[in-house]
């Protein structure tokens, strides 16, 4: 019995979190890489599988039609992704707490109708009209939250009722005109259709994430060292920052060969980052995960569960309304058909494909970004091929399945390695 020294700060591992001999740790950069490969082998890959699926899709489509990978087509893709992507970001909020919103399409439609009626028909300034539309979304979310919290109505049913109600409201608002043209040339429509970042701005913005990684990485490492915890090596931090910067700058440089990076996409990415921050770094986000993972445990921890649900509903409907406003700007029209069709399903599917669980407590804001790009890539790739509708549907279904199979297989391997 000579090994009890292992549990009183042993000289080889004085760090608070490195005292368990059963755990293999990585100290150097080489070790980190080895640990990373290990994680790949055991299937703990985060977003990687979806990205691999995406790369497969892109490769196939660009072989079928080289136009797919031209900068301008990708710019279009980013424009199209942004509107449903913003809606999908709201869905991520709902899925996080284990509930669902089936009415995001209708809510986005109502928002676009409000925008059109107020701005074009009633002559309210565009900014105010937008605000009103988004506020209406927030109100709808609040209403759902009341039904959910007070009456215990399942969100599936409450939002199904909402889907119909708000579709009706949208038709009612647009009334006799059917659809309203938003003025071409107005800042909002230009934002939705044309505005791209100047090359220099996009290059600077693309450098930001890397810088943030560097700064917070160093700061956290220093604080952890001071607290006696293990910390990332400088090498690791720099490697990550460089990798992120290189990828971001390459993407931006490529897009700048075409029209450039759409401001609308920039806005979408900004929202995604803000949401990711809120979910992972604030008490609110922690509470969202907790409520989604185990509602009763969260309640017993003193979390105001009702308020968390309310915030999720409001967040989702508000983002849906904002997405609707953006969609109207993109189409330069508030139409009766805005938000109908597959908007609901696409928004939900994007979140799920990106890896957010339908059952709550697991996911990230990035899933909306990745998921919508997968979906729009399929859709955009198919627009470049001359196909009959029947083939188009079948291929969409098939490609979707393939994109997800990669992720599913990775997740399976994770389970069999005891990491799920």
């Amino acid at each position, binding site marked *: 019995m000579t090994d009890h020294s292992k549990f009183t700060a042993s000289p080889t591992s004085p760090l608070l979190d490195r005292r368990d001999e059963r755990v293999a740790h990585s100290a150097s950069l080489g070790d980190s890489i080895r640990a990373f490969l290990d994680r790949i082998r055991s299937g703990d890959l985060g977003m990687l599988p979806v990205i691999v699926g995406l790369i497969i899709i892109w490769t196939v489509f660009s072989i079928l*039609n080289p*136009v797919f990978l*031209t900068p*301008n*087509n990708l710019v*279009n893709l980013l*424009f*199209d992704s942004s509107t449903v992507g913003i809606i999908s970001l709201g869905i991520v909020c709902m899925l996080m707490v284990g509930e669902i919103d089936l009415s995001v399409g209708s809510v986005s439609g109502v928002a676009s109708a409000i925008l059109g009626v107020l701005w074009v028909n009633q002559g309210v300034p565009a900014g105010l009209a937008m605000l009103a539309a988004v506020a209406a979304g927030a109100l709808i979310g609040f209403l759902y939250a009341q039904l959910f919290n007070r009456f215990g109505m399942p969100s599936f049913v409450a939002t199904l009722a909402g889907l119909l109600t708000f579709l009706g409201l949208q*038709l009612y608002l*647009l009334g*006799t*005109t*059917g*659809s*309203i*043209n938003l*003025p*071409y040339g107005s800042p909002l429509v230009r934002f*939705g*259709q*044309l505005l791209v970042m100047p090359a220099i701005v996009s290059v600077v913005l693309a450098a930001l994430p890397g810088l943030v990684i560097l700064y917070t990485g160093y700061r956290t490492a220093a604080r952890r060292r001071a607290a006696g915890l293990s910390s990332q090596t400088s090498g690791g931090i720099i490697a990550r920052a460089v990798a992120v910067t290189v990828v971001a700058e390459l993407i931006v440089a490529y897009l700048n060969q075409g*029209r450039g990076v759409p401001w609308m996409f920039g806005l979408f990415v900004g929202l995604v980052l803000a949401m990711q921050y809120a979910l992972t770094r604030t008490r609110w986000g922690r509470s969202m995960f907790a409520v989604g993972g185990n509602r009763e445990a969260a309640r017993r921890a003193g979390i105001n569960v009702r308020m968390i649900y309310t915030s999720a509903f409001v967040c989702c409907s508000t983002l849906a309304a904002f997405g609707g406003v953006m*969609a109207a700007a*993109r*189409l*330069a*029209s508030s*139409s*009766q*058909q*805005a938000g*109908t*069709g*597959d908007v609901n399903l696409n928004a939900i599917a994007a979140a799920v494909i990106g890896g957010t669980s339908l059952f709550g407590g697991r996911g990230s804001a990035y899933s909306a970004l990745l998921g919508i790009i997968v979906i729009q890539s399929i*859709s*955009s790739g198919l*627009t*470049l091929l*001359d196909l*009959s*509708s*029947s083939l*188009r549907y079948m291929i969409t279904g098939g490609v979707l399945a393939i994109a997800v199979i990669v992720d599913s297989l990775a997740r399976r391997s994770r389970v069999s390695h005891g990491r799920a």
Partner: protein
Amino acid sequence: AEVTDATVAFLMPDQGSTRYEEHDFPGFKAEMDKLCPGCKVIYLNAGADASRQQQQFNSVISQGAKAIVLDPVDSAAAASLVELAQSQGIKVIAYDRPIPDAKADFYVSFDNQAIGKSIADSLVAHLKAKGVSPDKGGVLQINGSPTDAAAGLIKKGIHEGLDNSGYKILAEYDTPDWLPSKAQEWASGQVTRFGDKIVGVVAANDGTGGGAIAALKAAGVDPVPPVTGNDATTAALQLIIAGDQYNTINKPSEIVAAAAANVAMQLLKGETPEAKTTLYNTPSQLFVPVVVTADNFKAEIIDKNIAKADALCVDRYAEGCKALGITQ
């Protein structure tokens, strides 16, 4: 026999365009009120769902409808509805879309296939007039919903117009659910694909046409090549005024609806309405739609009181209205 208190149903297929609620039904109702003030009119819309239309059809029968004006969601499926009604002595008037497999009592319509052909012909004529060479490129064809029978007829008509026009069809697309955003997305892709080879776009209705225009504008294409439409919606008329859309189809649905009301009353009274032609074995009355372009805008729209100048010529469109001579 005199009819004073019959129930007549007016069953429309979808909400894809506002025309049914804004034009067809008001026109029908107005004429019915004139012909038979005591009659009851039931209006229902099936929301593009054939089974819902069947449900509505059964429902109006249980409500005692004696004549049903039916714009079928699914032309083929409607055959059984016709037989069901006729077996109970209820008159069925096919409206807008024909019912090929059953002999309805009458058919009143614009000819959807003719609509498709007219917009295509009008666009081709315009291109030829402007001296656009067929070698320069071709046109995009945006059809309606792949699951919509009326869209199929329009598609057929467009092909009739384009196939021998000399202009190639660069690419063709069935827009799911007639969604403008889908049309926009597809058109954006074609702009990157074909660039300035696109000399025109034939879109099957105003919504998809608007989507195509948005796509062309978003890609910075200037000037926007001519884009067609159909339905003469306010939004489309304004786009024509602004010079962004080339044409649309003016279907004064009120007239057709009024004709349907007349036929219904005649059938109820036991008279035989006069048929101008016979289509699918059914006595028919077909109206010829008019293509509206900037050239005949004032004559067809303003002068015929289809739309009011002051409704169309709001701020941004005022200048265009002056140019077209609509306002001074």
